[in-house]
């Protein structure tokens, strides 16, 4: 075991874990966050995505001892139930969810990409989401929600 201080959603969190523990387990178990989730544990579905220094990373294959004190943003760090972030609001408006389990990966991946590519085309956004999975088939609504958010960013 070793101690680390993680900076998550603007706050410092000291944790005592095995150094090679994937960041996901620290976030979901030690910090009890519900945004990043275990979908495959292999970096293949996007469910565990967080933003690390503004980049979308797969926390299930990111050992906790590699993140230092870099700023980590999770889905909870974007907005709240009472005041959702505009991309979260776009998903609510479009009801772009079925079971909702994949939506963390979809929102975090899309936001990280659009933060740096505000003028991205639909094809660009799809390319950015090419490694993100949804099994319920909410693809069309999710793209609609992302498009709506992207239009707001551009204005």
């Amino acid at each position: 075991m070793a101690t680390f201080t993680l900076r998550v959603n603007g706050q410092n969190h000291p944790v005592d874990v095995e150094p090679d523990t994937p960041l996901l387990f620290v976030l979901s178990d030690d910090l009890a966050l519900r945004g990043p989730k275990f979908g495959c544990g292999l970096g293949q579905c996007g469910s565990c995505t967080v933003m690390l220094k503004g980049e979308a990373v797969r926390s299930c294959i990111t050992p906790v001892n590699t993140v230092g004190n870099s700023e980590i943003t999770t889905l909870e760090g974007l907005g709240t139930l009472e005041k959702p972030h505009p991309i979260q609001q776009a998903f609510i408006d479009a009801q772009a969810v079925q079971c909702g389990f994949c939506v963390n990966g979809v929102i975090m991946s899309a936001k990280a990409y659009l933060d740096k590519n505000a003028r991205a085309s639909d094809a660009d956004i799809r390319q950015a989401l090419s490694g993100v999975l949804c099994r319920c088939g909410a693809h069309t609504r999710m793209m609609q929600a992302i498009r709506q958010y992207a239009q707001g960013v551009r204005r």
Partner: protein
Amino acid sequence: MKPHSKISRRNFMKGSAALVVGVGATGLVARFGLSPSASAAQGINGAPGNQLDSWIAIAADGKVTAYTGKCELGHGLHTAQTQLIAEELSVPFDRVTLLQCDTGVTPDQGTTSGAQSHPTNFNQANLALAGATAREVLTQRASARLNLPAQQLVARDGIVMSRTDASKRVSYGELVAGAKFGTALNTNASRKPQSEWSILGKPIKRPEIAAMVTGQFEYVHNVRVPGMLHGQVVRPPFVGATLERVDESSVRGMAGVVKVVTKKNFVGIVAEKPWQAIQAAAKLNVTWSRGPALPKHSSFHDTLRTQKPTRDTFTVNSKDVDEKIGGAAKVIKATYLYPYQMHGSFASSCAVADVQGERATIWSASQAVYPLRDSAALVLGLRPENVHVIFRLASGCYGCNGADPVSYDAALLSQAAGKRVRVQLSRKDEMAWENYGYAFVIDQRAGVDATGNIVSWDHVSWSAVMGGRPGGGNPGNVASGMLAGFEPAAFAARSPAPDPTNFGNMSNAVPSYVTGCVGTRCGGTGTIASQRVLTHNIRSPFFTGPLRSPERLQNTFAHESFMDEIAASLRVDPVDYRLRHLADPRLIHVLQEAAKLAKWEKRPSPRSGIARTGTVSGRGISCVLYEGNNGYCAVVAEVDVTQSTGAIVVKNLYIANDCGPISNPDGLNNQLEGGAIQGISRALLEEVTWDDEKVTSVDWRTYRPLYLGAEVPVIRTQLINAEGRAMGAGETAVTVVPAAIANAVFDATGARLRQIPFTPERVKAALAAR
């Protein structure tokens, strides 16, 4: 509403915006039953379903708590059921708290499956009847209290008042005051007429979505209880393997390891933290004996056709099929092949169990909390009444996924460790050991007369089965139950098939175009009187179970492809040709509506003047009455086929759906869209593979589904809001999409695809064979 959706017959969307409610965190917690005891006005302890108190309680402040045994699975059912109760009771949507699927508090409604929740809870029974009975009882009590005849009273916003003098009024809270109703459901209670609906039938947003997209929602994966440890299972490396030895010393001294657990062939590890459990499970030295060699994947459809023994069933048999086909002007034959596919739930399955002595509590995403209570009791050796199962949503299940087996896993590890244990399966354990959707071989044969009408239809299928939903008594129907020492339900061979005695649609084994006559009763939707439907089951080497539209999808792919092949051989329009052989007016209506929505051009397939190279476009149609009685759907698919690569892109889908009265049009659209996209993934990509000893589809690289990067179609829907009986809509679209794609590819290229999935290699082979 989305711009691409239209609702026909009634314009009932006016003024609905005011009903879209915002729900704060507290409301959401109560709504999803995270704390049943806090919000239940009265405790209902798994009571039988004929008492009103089993379904509805009204507190002194007028808040309504309703109880349902049909669970939210990501399909919007929780919102629709809340709308139902609010409507029947004439109270605002956000005054109703609906508690779902908890053996401590909700009625036993079996399994939430098979698009049966609307038929069960939205017609003159169960939850809907409870709402209607409660309004009737409240009106009667108000009549006595106000000294006015009941017919002069009206219920609004939880208040019963005089129709002519609003000052004469009494609230539900005053009438009930938190007490029990103490009355049975009245089977004759009047449902509120659809024409008067102001809450049901509206596109009310699902309140939990706000919590999901902000990371606040509690899935079963997020359940955390004090003192909880983490388990991992060690599944056998081969199908049919048995345990020889576990070397516990191989994990001795590893950080956090609490216990190694074995029971028959079940092996698992309990550790303090999830990562510790995962590492220890990987390191644990376990010796297994090999199982028997698996049948070859490449020739498995031949195995299906030839393996003995079989279980044979005639669904219809007019006993003149050979004669009619023998005398037909033209005979058409085709064989369709379908692979094993997996539920492949997005999140590997998870459960939390707390087994202490004679009692157990299990937090599970099972679709069947009461059956799981009983089967888990068998696994644990406890009395069913001492097992409490509490539903929590997981990722979409689409049928019998890993939710039940992982509940046994957690329960077995908790029992052995004497601690609360959470288990989330690895991706590989989820995929290699789940209950796959059925592989099929389907032979179709039809005789056509000189005028081009089908005079006889002959259908023979072979499919493999083992296990399935465990129900209350067969934990061996899923992997962990079998490993723990229970057998799958016995395979009951039967050959030859007995004559049918009653008509059953048999999961759409019966084509839509036959009369479905058994004796003097006819249950079909078509006109063809000469008909034979024979199905053969064999024992599967892998666990199987219901996967969204079980058998209905496989059969409908074969029927709707075959109907297109017959129409093409006669050079007639595929819509017209279907209409010539259909008798059911509602099935005819959805077919016509889908064609109209797609601006269907009347002509035979394939289109004329097809270019043999480059990207070409085509359209195809398909329709179904799901299970013969539970939802009408038709779809037109427009596809592009790139002939050099064999790639298919579905550009547009036009769906017409009639499931009776619509509870929530946006929820219905979401189901149709999701089913359609899943149908594309199933048709184009998904197939379980194996070698001679094990399943080799173990992650998203070896079982490739439709990612968000894929080009997906624009989906337009026509929702037909019919009166009468509420039917299911969760499985209609997925059922019709694969055949519509195959028919569209044929229209574009003249090449017929008869084996799912339509991989580029298979498309290129079909193109080469033109």
